[in-house]
C-alpha cells in the first residue's frame, strides 16, 4: 500500500518525529519533501542554531517534524551536537528518522550507532541511493536492517522517492511498543564498568536512559558526569564522583567506547555494502578536478561571484529595484492625493508621504536585491557548488582560525550584511559563527555603493574604479585582521575540527531554490522592514520638530543633536552638524547617508545627480571625502544588521559590542586618513 501525505491541516497531533543526519546527507531536502510548505524556522533557545519545525498529515492524523541540526555525532563538542542530543534525549520525539547518505554509509552509521545506544526508535532513510548507484555501490538495505535492528529504507528525497515508505515505517514504530537494545559490543572491562555505574544510577530520578547515562559516565562525558552527580546527590547517593572513582581506577575509556562504535559500524556494512574495486569517476569528480583545482579554484570562484553580483545589481537593483521604488512612489502620490481629498491635516500628509512612504520605499528597494541574490545563491547551494567554494578557501581561512565555509558568509555580506550574518548559522561551531558575524559588517554592502559613487563623482572621477576597489579591499583586510584578533582574544581555545565533505552535484530543484529565496526575503521583510520603517519615521519627526523651527534646519531637534555630536568627528575632518547627522541617519539604513546629505546640503531630498555633487564640492575636500568614505565603510552597521545579530546570538550584548567596536575602528581609521593626509600636505 502506498502511503499518502495529505497536506490539509488536522488539529490533533498524533506524534512527533525528529529528523537527524550528517551534514550533506540531504536532510533538509528530506524535511522539505516531508513537510512541504507546512514549516517554520526559528532558533533553539539560548543558542544560534536554527530550529525548523514542520508537520504533515497521514491517514487523517497530524505529525510534527523537528529538523535537528546536521551533525556527525551526538557528543557535546559543538552547539549543534548538544542541541541535537538534548532533543533526542529529552524532547518529545516518538521516533527518529536518521537520514543517511548512501554513498557514505560507513561514516553516517556512527551517528546511527549513537542513536541506538540511546535506546531510541529509529528509522534509517538510506538517502541518495541514485548517486550511490552511479558510483556502482551495491547496497543491501535488508541486510543493513537485520544487522542494525531497525528499518532501513532506500530514498531519493530530491525526487520524493521512498518518503512515503519512511513515513509508514516511522508511524508504525510510533504505534508499537518496542524496546530497542543497544547492539554495540564494548570491551569486557568497559562493559563491567557500565554495568556497575548503571546499578548505582538505578536509585536516581535521572531524566536520561540509565544505561546510556552509565555509558557516557564511563566514556568521560563531563556534562553527563556533572548532571549525574547532581541527581545522585539529590537522591541521597552522596559523592557520586568519589563512588565512581572508587569503582575502578578513574581511567578514561573514551577511546575504547568510540572505537567500539566504529567497529560496530564497520561490521554492519560488511557484506551489506559493496563498493567497486576502483572508484567510479563520476561527473562530479570530473567537474571537481577543475573547480577545486589548487590554482584555478579561487579564480573560478571569483568569476562566478562576479556574475552573481553583476546579476544581483543589474537585475535586482537596477531593474526590479527601480520598479519597486516607482510602485511605492505611485502609492505615496495616491495616498497624498487621497489624504488631501479627505482634507487630512498637513502634518499627517507630510508624515505619510515623507515619513511612511520614504521609509517603506527604503525597505522595498532592498527586497528585489535580496530576492535575486538568494535566487542565485540558492541555485549555487542546491547544485552543490557552495561546498566547493568553502573548500577552495579553507586553507586561507584556517590560517585565520576560521573554516572555509565562513568565507561564504563574508561573500554574501557584500550584497547585504543581514543575509551574510544569517548564513553564518551554517557554520559548525560557535567560535566560527561569532567571528564571522562580528567581521561581516566590514564587507561593504550594496547599500553603501551610492555613498561611494557620489563622492567619487565629486572628487575622484578619474580614479573611480581604483578607489572603489581600494575601499572594498580595505574592508576585507580590516575584516580578516579582526578575525585573527578575535581568534586570539575573545574566542581563543575553541578549536574547530572541521571535516570537509563535498556532496555530489545535483540539478537544483525549483522548489528548493524558491523556498530558500522566500525564507530569506520573508525573514528580511519581517526583521528589517519594521526596524527601518520605525527609525526613518523617527528621523522624520526629529527633522520637522519643533513646529516653530524650519524643517531640516539646525534649529530642528535633529539639527541640535547633530550640532552636539559634530565635535566628535572634527579630528577626522568632517565636523559639521549635517555630516554628523548623515552618518547617524546611515545607522537605520546606509542609503540614508547620501539622502540626508542631499536633503541638508542641497536643500532638498536628492539621492544622486549634479545638485548633490556640486553641494558636496562646497562642503568637502578630496581628503575629507576620503576620510568620510573610510568612515562609512567601517563604522556601525545598519539597524537591520544589528537586530539580526541580536536575534542570531539571542543577546543584546553582541550587537552593542558590534556597534561600538566598528564605530571605534571607523572613526580611528578616518582620523588616521585625515591626519596623515594633512601632514603629507594633501587637502
Amino acid at each position, binding site marked *: 500500500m502506498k502511503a499518502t501525505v495529505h497536506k490539509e491541516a488536522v488539529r490533533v497531533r498524533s506524534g512527533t518525529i525528529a529528523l537527524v543526519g550528517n551534514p550533506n546527507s540531504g536532510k533538509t531536502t528530506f524535511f522539505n519533501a516531508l513537510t512541504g510548505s507546512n514549516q517554520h524556522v526559528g532558533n533553539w533557545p539560548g543558542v544560534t542554531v536554527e530550529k525548523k519545525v514542520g508537520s504533515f498529515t497521514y491517514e487523517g492524523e497530524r505529525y510534527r517534524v523537528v529538523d535537528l541540526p546536521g551533525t556527525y555525532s551526538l557528543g557535546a563538542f559543538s552547539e549543534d551536537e548538544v542541541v541535537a542530543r538534548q532533543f533526542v534525549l529529552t524532547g518529545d520525539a516518538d521516533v527518529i528518522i536518521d537520514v543517511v547518505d548512501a554513498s557514505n554509509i560507513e561514516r553516517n552509521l556512527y551517528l546511527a550507532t549513537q542513536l541506538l545506544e540511546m535506546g531510541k526508535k529509529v528509522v534509517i532513510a538510506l538517502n541518495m541511493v541514485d548517486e550511490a548507484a552511479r558510483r556502482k555501490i551495491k547496497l543491501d538495505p535488508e541486510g543493513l536492517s537485520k544487522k542494525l535492528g531497525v528499518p532501513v529504507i532506500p530514498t531519493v528525497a530530491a525526487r520524493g522517492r521512498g518518503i512515503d515508505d519512511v513515513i509508514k515505517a516511522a508511524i508504525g514504530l510510533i504505534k508499537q511498543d518496542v524496546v530497542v537494545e543497544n547492539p554495540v559490543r564494548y570491551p569486557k572491562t568497559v562493559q563491567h564498568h557500565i554495568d556497575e555505574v548503571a546499578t548505582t544510577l538505578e536509585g536516581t530520578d535521572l531524566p536520561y536512559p540509565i544505561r546510556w547515562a552509565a555509558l557516557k559516565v564511563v566514556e568521560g562525558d563531563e556534562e553527563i558526569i556533572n548532571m549525574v552527580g547532581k541527581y545522585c546527590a539529590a537522591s541521597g547517593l552522596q559523592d557520586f564522583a568519589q563512588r565512581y572513582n572508587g569503582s575502578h581506577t578513574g581511567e*578514561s575509556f573514551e577511546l575504547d567506547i568510540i572505537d567500539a562504535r566504529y567497529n560496530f559500524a564497520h561490521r554492519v556494512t560488511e557484506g551489506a555494502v559493496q563498493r567497486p574495486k576502483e572508484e567510479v569517476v563520476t561527473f562530479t569528480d570530473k567537474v571537481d578536478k577543475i573547480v577545486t583545482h589548487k590554482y584555478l579554484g579561487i579564480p573560478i570562484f571569483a568569476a562566478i561571484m562576479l556574475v552573481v553580483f553583476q546579476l544581483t545589481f543589474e537585475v535586482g537593483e537596477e531593474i526590479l529595484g527601480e520598479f519597486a521604488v516607482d510602485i511605492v512612489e505611485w502609492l505615496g502620490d495616491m495616498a497624498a492625493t487621497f489624504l488631501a481629498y479627505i482634507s487630512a491635516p498637513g502634518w499627517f500628509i507630510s508624515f505619510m508621504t515623507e515619513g511612511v512612504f520614504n521609509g517603506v520605499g527604503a525597505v522595498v528597494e532592498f527586497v528585489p536585491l535580496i530576492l535575486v541574490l538568494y535566487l542565485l545563491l540558492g541555485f549555487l547551494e542546491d547544485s552543490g557548488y557552495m561546498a566547493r567554494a568553502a573548500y577552495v578557501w579553507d586553507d586561507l581561512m584556517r590560517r585565520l582560525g576560521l573554516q572555509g565555509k565562513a568565507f561564504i558568509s563574508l561573500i554574501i555580506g557584500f550584497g547585504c550584511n543581514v543575509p551574510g550574518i544569517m548564513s553564518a548559522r551554517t557554520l559548525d561551531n560557535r567560535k566560527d559563527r561569532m567571528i564571522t558575524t562580528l567581521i561581516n559588517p566590514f564587507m561593504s554592502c550594496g547599500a553603501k555603493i551610492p555613498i561611494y559613487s557620489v563622492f567619487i563623482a565629486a572628487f575622484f572621477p578619474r580614479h573611480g574604479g581604483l578607489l572603489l576597489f581600494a575601499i572594498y579591499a580595505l574592508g576585507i583586510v580590516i575584516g580578516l585582521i579582526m578575525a585573527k584578533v578575535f581568534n586570539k582574544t575573545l574566542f581563543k581555545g575553541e578549536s574547530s575540527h572541521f571535516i570537509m565533505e563535498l556532496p555530489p552535484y545535483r540539478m537544483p530543484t525549483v522548489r528548493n531554490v524558491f523556498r530558500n529565496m522566500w525564507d530569506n526575503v520573508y525573514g528580511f521583510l519581517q526583521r528589517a522592514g519594521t526596524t527601518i520603517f520605525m527609525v526613518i519615521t523617527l528621523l522624520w519627526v526629529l527633522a520637522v520638530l519643533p513646529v516653530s523651527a524650519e524643517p531640516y534646519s539646525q534649529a530642528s531637534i535633529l539639527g541640535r543633536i547633530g550640532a552636539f555630536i559634530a565635535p566628535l568627528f572634527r579630528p577626522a575632518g568632517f565636523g559639521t552638524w549635517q555630516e554628523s547627522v548623515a552618518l547617524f541617519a546611515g545607522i537605520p539604513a546606509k542609503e540614508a547617508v547620501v539622502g540626508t546629505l542631499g536633503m541638508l546640503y542641497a536643500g532638498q531630498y536628492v539621492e544622486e545627480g549634479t545638485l548633490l555633487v556640486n553641494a558636496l564640492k562646497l562642503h568637502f575636500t578630496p581628503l575629507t571625502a576620503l576620510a568620510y568614505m573610510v568612515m562609512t565603510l567601517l563604522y556601525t552597521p545598519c539597524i537591520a544588521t544589528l537586530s539580526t545579530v541580536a536575534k542570531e546570538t539571542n543577546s543584546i550584548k553582541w550587537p552593542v559590542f558590534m556597534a561600538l567596536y566598528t564605530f571605534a575602528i571607523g572613526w580611528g581609521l578616518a582620523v588616521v586618513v585625515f591626519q596623515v593626509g594633512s601632514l603629507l600636505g594633501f587637502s
Partner: protein
Amino acid sequence: MLTDILKIIDRDGYISRSELSRELDVYQSMIDDGITELLRMGYLLEVQTGEDCPTVCAGCPFAKQCSKEIVKTFQVSDKGRHYLEGKRPTVRM
C-alpha cells in the same frame, strides 16, 4: 579501528590516509573521522612542516616538498604512546 590507526602511525612514523585505508580495509572517510577523533582526544598531534617542525629533515619523506608548501602530518602524542603501552589516561572529574 582507532587503536589500529594509532598503532600503525606509531609503528611507521608516517603513513598516508589511503595507505591506512587499504591496510585496515575501511573507507577513507572513516579514516578521516578516526584521525579527527584521535586528534580531539589528544592521542595524536598534528604537525605542520616548516620552521616549527620537530622532525629532522634527514630521512623525512616530506623534506623536499616542505620547502615548497606546508605539509601536515600526524604524530602519536605522549598520551597516545602511554595508551599503547597499556596505561590509560585518568578521567577528569
